[in-house]
């Protein structure tokens, strides 16, 4: 069975794993992990440039722009206005109109503010951005974000950086049944099986950062995540057997 490409608005990707660039000990290690992950889309954050000292090497020096599509995020924004402002600055970097929209509601949980997220989605869609929006796994707000014009809705499997995996697969399942835009699990992934679980549910992709960057061997974990993503996708496309309460022998029971 051959898989189709993943379409997000006008963009097309073969890889379904999206990886972040944060928390790496060195930029060289990040570069190697990005390569091992096979990801085509990588996320970056927008921050004030440091004017206190001479700028060191730029993150962008380590990212081959012919190879990767850069997905800037609005991480760290706690209001729709702030997120919209950040999105405009990101677009001004001249790389693309893609934006991973995050409007956070609280510093401890890093859970999204649903009202601010919806407001910012409406504004950015009107302004011509391709909006990939981070949200909770609540199916109602997910649907509202789709209605607002988001290109992809990206529910968290678990809180950002928590590594808890897909805490409520039933909600993800309802989101997948209710929405028609591509669903990408964003955040909470701790290990390879979490990625597989998301893909087996029918998500079109998984976005993660800490699960790779925080692993003892990030490069090896990146490879594990890549295989897990492909594996889960293949299993989803293959159609798993239904779960049954009783046994069903694999070997013939008669004619010994």
């Amino acid at each position, binding site marked *: 069975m051959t898989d189709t490409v993943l379409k997000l608005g006008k963009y097309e990707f073969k890889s379904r794993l999206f990886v972040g660039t944060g928390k790496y000990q060195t930029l060289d290690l990040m570069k190697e992990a990005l390569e091992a992950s096979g990801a085509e889309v990588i996320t970056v*954050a927008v921050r*004030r440039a440091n004017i206190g000292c001479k700028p060191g090497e730029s993150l962008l020096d380590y990212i081959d722009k012919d190879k990767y599509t850069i997905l800037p995020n609005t991480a760290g924004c706690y209001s729709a206005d702030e997120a919209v402002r950040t999105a405009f600055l990101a677009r001004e*970097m001249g790389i693309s109109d893609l934006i991973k929209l995050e409007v956070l509601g609280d510093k401890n949980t890093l859970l999204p503010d649903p009202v601010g997220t919806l407001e910012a989605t409406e504004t950015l869609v009107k302004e011509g951005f391709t909006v990939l929006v981070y949200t909770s796994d609540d199916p109602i707000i997910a649907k509202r974000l789709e209605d607002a014009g988001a290109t992809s809705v990206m529910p968290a499997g678990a809180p950002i950086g928590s590594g808890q995996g897909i805490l409520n697969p039933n909600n993800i399942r309802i989101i997948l049944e209710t929405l028609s835009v591509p669903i990408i699990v964003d955040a909470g992934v701790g290990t390879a099986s979490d990625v597989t679980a998301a893909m087996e549910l029918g998500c079109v992709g998984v976005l993660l950062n800490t699960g790779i960057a925080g692993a003892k061997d990030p490069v090896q974990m990146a490879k594990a995540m890549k295989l897990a993503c492909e594996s889960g996708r293949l299993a989803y496309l293959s159609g798993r057997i239904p779960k049954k309460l009783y046994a069903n022998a694999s070997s013939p029971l008669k004619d010994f």
Partner: protein
Amino acid sequence: MQITVNGENKEFSTGTSLSELLKSFDFDERYVAVELNRKIVPRVQFSEKLLVENDTLEIVTFVGGG
């Protein structure tokens, strides 16, 4: 003249262009986006944009993130 750059007050000579200011901090123009008094300045205008007393600049760049 006083210019606020990323929240810090800095002194520049009158007639300094945005391009010159960025250069003074060793910023690579390709790697930054700039707001002048909360309005984005397109990169193509960096060299012609002359700064005036009390301008406020916000200079951002991409950093690692998820």
